C-alpha cells in the first residue's frame, strides 16, 4: 500500500487521495495522522456548535454548559494527541492513547467525563494497531460505548451513553457489509442521529423541555466534524446551518418553538407515520420545517423514505392534508388534549399549583364554550374564565384567575362589553400588575391575542393588543328575549336578531339569513376572511350550509368555521 493511500485522510486536504488509475478517493485505511486530523475536525466542529449544544441542556443539572464542557474535553484530548507530531510513523494506537490521556486530564462536567471514558475505550481497542480500517473503527466505537456503560451503576438511557451505543451498533452493521472507514463512519453518524432523535422518548425531562439530549447532540456534532473532514470539507468554512438541516438539528428548531408557544398541552396531539410515495424521495428538512411551523411541541424524525411526526396543533386536519401530498399515512393517532385538560381541571382541587411560567406575561381570557376556550388557549391564553353574555364572571372569579396565572404580569381579556367593567375592578384589586385590554367580543379577543408577543413588555403588549382589537368588527346572531323596537328595528320575543358591534341591527326568521344580512352590513365583499364561530345549539350541517351560502355570495372570500360551542349565540362572525 502506498503511503499516500495509507495516509488517506491527511492527504485529502490537498485535494483527495486517488487510487492508482485516477479513480475516486478511497478511505479504506486511515493512519495516525489521519486520525489526528479527524480529531481536530471533530473538535473544531464542536467548537463552532457549542452554543447550540449548550442551549439544550436540561439534565441532570440545567446549567447550560454541556457543549462547553465537551469541547474543553475534546480540546484537551486533541492537544495531547497532537503532541506526538505529524510524523509518518505515527500509529492510530499512539494517537488514541494520547487522546485518552488528554481527555482524562481535561474532562469537565458529566458529558466530558463520559467522553473521556469513550476515548479510553477507543484507545483500548486501537492498542497496537498502526492503521485503522472500517472493521477496526466499528470495533473501536463498540468498545468505546461498552467502556462508557461500565462506569455507572444505573445507566440513564436517553443520554450520551445511549447515543454512543446507537452509533456503535450502526457502525458494526456497516462494517459487516464490508464498509470502509468512510462508510462505517457514515453508519455511525446515522445511528447516532437516529438514537439522538429518540432521546426525548426515553427521558421525560427532555420531553418536557422539547429538546434532545445535549451530550448526545455533542457526540453527533463530533462525528459530523470527522465526517466533514473525511469528505474533504473544512469545518472552519462550513456553514453552521449544515447541522440545522440534518436530522440532529431538530432540537434547535424545537427550542425555538418552545420559546414562541410555551409548553402548553392544548389542542390536538397528532401523530403519524408518512411513507414516501413509490418512486419518490422526501425532502425531509423542508417537510420537518413546514410541519413544525404548523404546531408546537413538535418531535419530527425521518429520512428520505419515512417521516414520523408528533405535533401539538389546533388544526390536525391541516397537518394531515399537508403530509398526504408526499405519500401515504399510517399509524395516525389524534388525541384531544383539551378534553384531557378540562377533565383534569374539573377534578383538581381549586388551589392547583400555577403552571410553569413561559415568558413574563400571561393572558387571562373570558369565554363561554369549549371551542372558543380551545381557540384562545391555542393562541396562548394561560387561563380561561367561564363567562359570557348571560353569565358574567364575578370580580372574585377574575381575581382568582389572575392570582393563579403563572406570572406576576397579567393581561386580562374580558371579551364581552358587559365584563369590561368587572375586569377593570378585578385589575385594581389584584396585587399583580394587570392590564385590561377592553375586548368586547370573542373575535376581538382572538385578534388581541394574536397581537401578543412574549418579548414585549406589559404596557406595549396592552397597547398593541387594544389597537388591533378595536379594529375588529363583530357580528352576533342570537334570539330576542322580549318584544322591543331599538334603533328602528322592531323585534318580537323569540325572533332571531343580529347585533353588529353590540348594536341591534337586523332581525329575521332564521339565523343563517340574519348572519348573511350582518355580513353584508360588515362590508364582507371587500374583506378577505370571514370566521364563523358556531354556537352549541347549531348542528354541523347548518354550519356547513351557512358556510356554503357565504361562499356562493362572496366567491373571493375565505370562510373559516370554528365550532365555538358558545351558548345563546348561534353564530359569531368576524370579518377581516
Amino acid at each position: 500500500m502506498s503511503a499516500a493511500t495509507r495516509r488517506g485522510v491527511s492527504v485529502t486536504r490537498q485535494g483527495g487521495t486517488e487510487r492508482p488509475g485516477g479513480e475516486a478517493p478511497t478511505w479504506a485505511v486511515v493512519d495516525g495522522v489521519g486520525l489526528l486530523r479527524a480529531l481536530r475536525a471533530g473538535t473544531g466542529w464542536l467548537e463552532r456548535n457549542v452554543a447550540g449544544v449548550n442551549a439544550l441542556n436540561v439534565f441532570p443539572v440545567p446549567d447550560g454548559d454541556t457543549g462547553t464542557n465537551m469541547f474543553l474535553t475534546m480540546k484537551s484530548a486533541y492537544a495531547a494527541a497532537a503532541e506526538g507530531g505529524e510524523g509518518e510513523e505515527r500509529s492510530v494506537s499512539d494517537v488514541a492513547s494520547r487522546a485518552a490521556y488528554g481527555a482524562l486530564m481535561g474532562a469537565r462536567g458529566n458529558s466530558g467525563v463520559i467522553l473521556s471514558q469513550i476515548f479510553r475505550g477507543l484507545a483500548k481497542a486501537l492498542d497496537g494497531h498502526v492503521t485503522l480500517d472500517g472493521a477496526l473503527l466499528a470495533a473501536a466505537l463498540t468498545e468505546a460505548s461498552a467502556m462508557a456503560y461500565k462506569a455507572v451503576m444505573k445507566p440513564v438511557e436517553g443520554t450520551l451513553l445511549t447515543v454512543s451505543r446507537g452509533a456503535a451498533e450502526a457502525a458494526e452493521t456497516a462494517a459487516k457489509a464490508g464498509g470502509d472507514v468512510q462508510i462505517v463512519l457514515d453508519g455511525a453518524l446515522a445511528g447516532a442521529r437516529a438514537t439522538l432523535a429518540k432521546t426525548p422518548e426515553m427521558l421525560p425531562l427532555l420531553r418536557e423541555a422539547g429538546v434532545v439530549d445535549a451530550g448526545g447532540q455533542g457526540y453527533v456534532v463530533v462525528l459530523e466534524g470527522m465526517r466533514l473532514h473525511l469528505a474533504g470539507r473544512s469545518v472552519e468554512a462550513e456553514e453552521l446551518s449544515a447541522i440545522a438541516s440534518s436530522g440532529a438539528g431538530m432540537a434547535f428548531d424545537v427550542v425555538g418553538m418552545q420559546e414562541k408557544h410555551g409548553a402548553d398541552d392544548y389542542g390536538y396531539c397528532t401523530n403519524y407515520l408518512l411513507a414516501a410515495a413509490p418512486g419518490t424521495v422526501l425532502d425531509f428538512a423542508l417537510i420537518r420545517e413546514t410541519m413544525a411551523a404548523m404546531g408546537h411541541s413538535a418531535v419530527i424524525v425521518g429520512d428520505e423514505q419515512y417521516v414520523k411526526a408528533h405535533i401539538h396543533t389546533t388544526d390536525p386536519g391541516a397537518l394531515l392534508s399537508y403530509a398526504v401530498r408526499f405519500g401515504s399515512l399510517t399509524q395516525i393517532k389524534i388525541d384531544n388534549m383539551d378534553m384531557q385538560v378540562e377533565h383534569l381541571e374539573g377534578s383538581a382541587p381549586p388551589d392547583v399549583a400555577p403552571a410553569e411560567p413561559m415568558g413574563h406575561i400571561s393572558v387571562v381570557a373570558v369565554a363561554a364554550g369549549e371551542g372558543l376556550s380551545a381557540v384562545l388557549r391555542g393562541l396562548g391564553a394561560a387561563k380561561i374564565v367561564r363567562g359570557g353574555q348571560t353569565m358574567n364572571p364575578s370580580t372574585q372569579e377574575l381575581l382568582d384567575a389572575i392570582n393563579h396565572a403563572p406570572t406576576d404580569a397579567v393581561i386580562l381579556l374580558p371579551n364581552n362589553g358587559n365584563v369590561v367593567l368587572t375586569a377593570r375592578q378585578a385589575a385594581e384589586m389584584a396585587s399583580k400588575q394587570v392590564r385590561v385590554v377592553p375586548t368586547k367580543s370573542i373575535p376581538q379577543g382572538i385578534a388581541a391575542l394574536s397581537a401578543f408577543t412574549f418579548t414585549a413588555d406589559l404596557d406595549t403588549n396592552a397597547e398593541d393588543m387594544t389597537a388591533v382589537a378595536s379594529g375588529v368588527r363583530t357580528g352576533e346572531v342570537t334570539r330576542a328575549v322580549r318584544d322591543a323596537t331599538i334603533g328602528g328595528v322592531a323585534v318580537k320575543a323569540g325572533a332571531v336578531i343580529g347585533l353588529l358591534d353590540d348594536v341591534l341591527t337586523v332581525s329575521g326568521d332564521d339565523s343563517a339569513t340574519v348572519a348573511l344580512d350582518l355580513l353584508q352590513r360588515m362590508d364582507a365583499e371587500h374583506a378577505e376572511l370571514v370566521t364563523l364561530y358556531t354556537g352549541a345549539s347549531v348542528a354541523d350541517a347548518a354550519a356547513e350550509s351557512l358556510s356554503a351560502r357565504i361562499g356562493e355570495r362572496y366567491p373571493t372570500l375565505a370562510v373559516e368555521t370554528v365550532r365555538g360551542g358558545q351558548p345563546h349565540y348561534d353564530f359569531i362572525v368576524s370579518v377581516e
Partner: protein
Amino acid sequence: MRTATPGKAVVSARAIGSVAYQATLGCYGIVELVPQDLRSRVGRRFGHPSPPDARDGIAVQMDGDRVTITLHVVMEYGLPIAAVAHNAIRTVYFAVERAFAFRPAAVNVHVHGLRFSDGRGERAV
C-alpha cells in the same frame, strides 16, 4: 394573592437519603456505594453482603435546618476523580432541591476505592 396557610412539612433524614441514593446511582463514574453500618461492613468483609437498602452508602446529618449529605462511593478507575465527584455533588444537590425545595448545606463525597474493569482485576480498595 394566596395567603400562607398554617402547617409545616417535616422531611426525615431517611427520605433525603433515599433521594440522594437514587441520584447517586445515576452519577456517571460511581460504580458502587459503600454501606457504613458495622453489620454491612463486616458482612462484606466476609463475603456476605447484606441486602441492598435504599440508603446504602449515603449519610445524612441534620442539624436544625442544616442538612449535610455524605456519599461513600467506589469510582471507576481511569476517570478524573475530581470531575466525577464534582458532578455527583451537583447531581445530588439538584435532586434534593428538586424533591424537597431546599438546598443541602453541603454534599461531600468520600471515595473509598477504585474499580478496575478493563482486565486488571475488578476492585482495589
